[in-house]
């Protein structure tokens, strides 16, 4: 066929879509700014809903990345983007030019930087960490302790940090953090059965066939306590434990609690890469800063410009499973486009 495609972003979506297109006989160049591929997956330990090791998906993707027809370009960013008659010409930071009949943007998301929710004390107090930090700890296999090395007696998971919060500028739900929070709570309970665990939530968004079941198990088998209420602030006690203040909205009372570790379930945000590439390609953003798709039902992989497609969480928050499906449909859309044009 001889048609070429450039995929920007070598994470889950980028590799999956590129792999399929390579199988279909296209020449695909995958541009990745990091030295290695697979995106944020390498930081994850277990994946919901079935608690499989993230490495399994990593392995799958690295095999996919070796599909004949794919060329991987690590440590590469796009410096310029140009329109030509047959498609596009992209120039990299290394001065290499790529010509493409179609472009897939798969630049992914960024984890919300919890420092911006200053009242929760991330990077101010020793024992406030994010869900991403916790995942790394779980993966490293080191025992879960406070900074001073003590086993925590009480841990609080805080839902919706950086999501559903007009005060930080993100009004949308990040979709994955509720179930991540429940999953991590269960994992911590398995590691530290004597530790009391509390999840502070606004409401639990456990969509997906098995998720509600996980939530039930968490309560029944793992003794995790769910408190409906949004945290107002965290402060540090002299012994570096943490005092959290919240409103229990079920009982309608203000609530104070001392805990040893606070885990902030940080949401998703469009990454700087997404913003930069979107601007360079001159495609539209939606009001939340993600890439805009022209039709939410019928054109989930299209952008405001012909020949440029999106795959994965640069268009909205997505789980690993949804990302893979979205990437597959992106591959299909690109294929159809290249046949028709």
């Amino acid at each position: 066929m001889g048609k070429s495609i450039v995929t920007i972003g070598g994470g889950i979506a980028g590799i999956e879509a590129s792999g399929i297109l390579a199988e279909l006989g296209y020449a695909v160049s995958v541009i990745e700014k990091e030295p290695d591929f697979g995106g944020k997956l390498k930081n994850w330990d277990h994946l919901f809903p079935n608690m499989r090791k993230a490495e399994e998906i990593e392995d799958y993707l690295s095999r996919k990345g070796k599909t004949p027809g794919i060329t991987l370009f690590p440590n590469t960013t796009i410096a310029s983007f140009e329109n030509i008659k047959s498609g596009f010409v992209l120039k990299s930071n290394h001065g290499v030019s790529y010509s493409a009949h179609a472009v897939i943007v798969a630049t992914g998301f960024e984890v919300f930087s919890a420092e911006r929710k200053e009242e929760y004390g991330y990077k101010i107090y020793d024992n406030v960490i994010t869900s991403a930090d916790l995942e790394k700890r779980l993966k490293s296999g080191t025992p879960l302790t406070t900074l001073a090395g003590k086993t925590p007696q009480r841990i609080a998971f805080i839902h919706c940090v950086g999501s559903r919060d007009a005060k930080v500028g993100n009004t949308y739900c990040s979709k994955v953090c509720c179930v991540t929070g429940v999953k991590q709570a269960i994992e911590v309970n398995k590691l530290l059965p004597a530790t009391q665990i509390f999840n502070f939530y606004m409401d639990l968004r456990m969509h997906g066939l098995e998720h509600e079941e996980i939530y039930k198990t968490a309560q029944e088998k793992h003794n995790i306590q769910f408190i409906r209420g949004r945290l107002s602030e965290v402060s540090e006690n002299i012994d570096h434990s943490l005092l959290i203040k919240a409103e229990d909205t079920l009982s309608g009372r203000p609530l104070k609690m001392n805990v040893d570790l606070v885990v902030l379930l940080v949401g998703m945000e469009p990454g700087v890469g997404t913003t930069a590439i979107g601007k360079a390609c001159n495609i539209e953003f939606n009001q939340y800063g993600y890439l805009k798709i022209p039709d939410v039902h019928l054109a989930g992989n299209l952008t405001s410009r012909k020949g440029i497609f999106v795959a994965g969480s640069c268009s909205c928050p997505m789980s690993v499973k949804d990302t893979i499906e979205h990437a597959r449909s992106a591959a299909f859309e690109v294929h159809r486009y290249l046949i028709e044009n």
Partner: protein
Amino acid sequence: MNKLLPEIFIWPFIIGLAYFSIIVLYRFVRWTLGLSKIDKIRIWKGLRSRKTLDSAIEAFREGLLHRKIFRTNPVLGYMHMSLAFGWFLLIVFGHFEAVAYKGSLSFPVYLPIFFRFFVDGIETYPFMHFFASLMDLLLLFVLSGVSLAYYKRFNKKLFGMKKATRLKSGDRIALTALWLIFPLRLLAESFSAGQLKNGGIITQPLGNLFSLFVPLELTTPVTWLAYSFALGFFFVSLPNSRYMHIPAEVFFIFLRNYSVRLKKRVNTYSLVQVFSCSRCGICLDTCQLNLANIHTQSVYVLKNIRNKNLTDEVLFNCLLCGKCQQVCPVGIELIDLRITQRIESTLQYNSSYSYLAGGEVKQADVVYFAGCMTHLTPSIKKSMLQIFAYSGVDYWFMDEHKAPCCGRPLMQAGQYDAAAVLIENNQQKILASGAKKLVVSCPICYKVFIEDYNLPDIKVQHHSEYLFELMQMGSLPKRLTSEKSIYHDPCELGRGSGIYDKPRKLLSNYTSLIPIMNEKEKSLCCGGSLSNIKIQMSERDIITNNALDEYLQYSPDSLITSCPLCKKTFARGNKIMVKDISEVVAASIVQKNKSNACADKKVLEQAL
């Protein structure tokens, strides 16, 4: 000359003047009676003091010369000045002329006003030609102002203004009458000059010209009558129009100099200020709410109070940033007026504050009050505690756990009684601590401690002042970095409390500050203000981002402020590193303990 006519045609003017004098006098009396007893005593004492002379001078300067408007905008200043001062001179020299003519001080009030109708050019009196020409020139001066006023209605740009105030019908009559008075006077005097040869360097040639083709016998009396009507209409409509600001402002200047003050309740002094607004519109352009297309600025509030149609939508949609008060040439206390009005229109809460009772009090040299916003920006709190520890201060962290509110947000929202309960509670605790100093981290709290608390012998300081003092005493480390920063003046600390220099001097030990256009008195509001309870989040964002964009033009490495709310608001914009002044100071301490910090970091890294 028909001797009957004069008697008839002066009447519109006489009636207008009488009505105006009665109403204005009545208002002055009512306003004075409505003041508190203490204020009345102040006036009584002030009347016989130097303050009266000072007030008269100020009234002359501001009411006639409009010095402050001049400073903001010379063209606008000239317009106001030529109208007010020019007219004033016309009246004064008109009277001199009448004295010269009569040779005595007794003449009817209307004589100077309609002088050229009555006095034939054949009659002689001292300086007659001088007077005729002087009056012509003065009239020309006023007319230049009138033409600018015409022009202003159609072209606001010349006046450096984007917005003009909207007019209501009383204003319209007064405005039309005012615009007609002087052109009619010019015509009438020229016609008379054509007949009686009594004109000056302008009216005489004009009169001669008119006499060639205008039936002066008819037009002269008709024009004088029209002139009298224009004056009459102006005076009658004045008390119910914006022009009431002319007498009200003079009255206001006197009261202010006699130390009459606004209380937390609406009284007649508030009314005096409301009536003193000239609707010059200067406050409109300075307001950042414009960016979000919100039209609830001070001039509208004052107008609504006058017209008794003020709504909460307008009253509560204001950042209380104080920018308008800073520029108001009349010196109206726009912020306090709005707050008193809020108190008036708020049904007082019936909240119980029983939970405040008890609670420990610690004896210490310094009481530290962080405030609720600081609890939401814990890096400020942490920095302050670090600094206290470093400089070995004996302090009591008053709101460390049980956090009573300082009362100011309630005050800003008009909940005066509820605020008073909190204030009383905190006051007792602070006094019981035996401290000599109260250090406050939030400028919003700082202002209420200064203004509404009764803390004799206790020095209240915002932490920027306090840190500056520690620095001067040599209790703080200095460490100049290569960082370039912008210092953002928080509204409540800058315009609200006049603290501009100490934070800058303190910061100069740590960073180099970039001078910017809108700083100090002119500084921008961050948009986060607690006192606006009507504004939408998206509208706040517009204001915040606009301010941030202005700062980013200077490409600073960081933005430094000294208010937790400003910090939080700007951090939300997510465009630049935002720090509190205390963090900048504390960073230099941390640097000293670097070895410790490294150890901490290692543990953290191992743990991760």
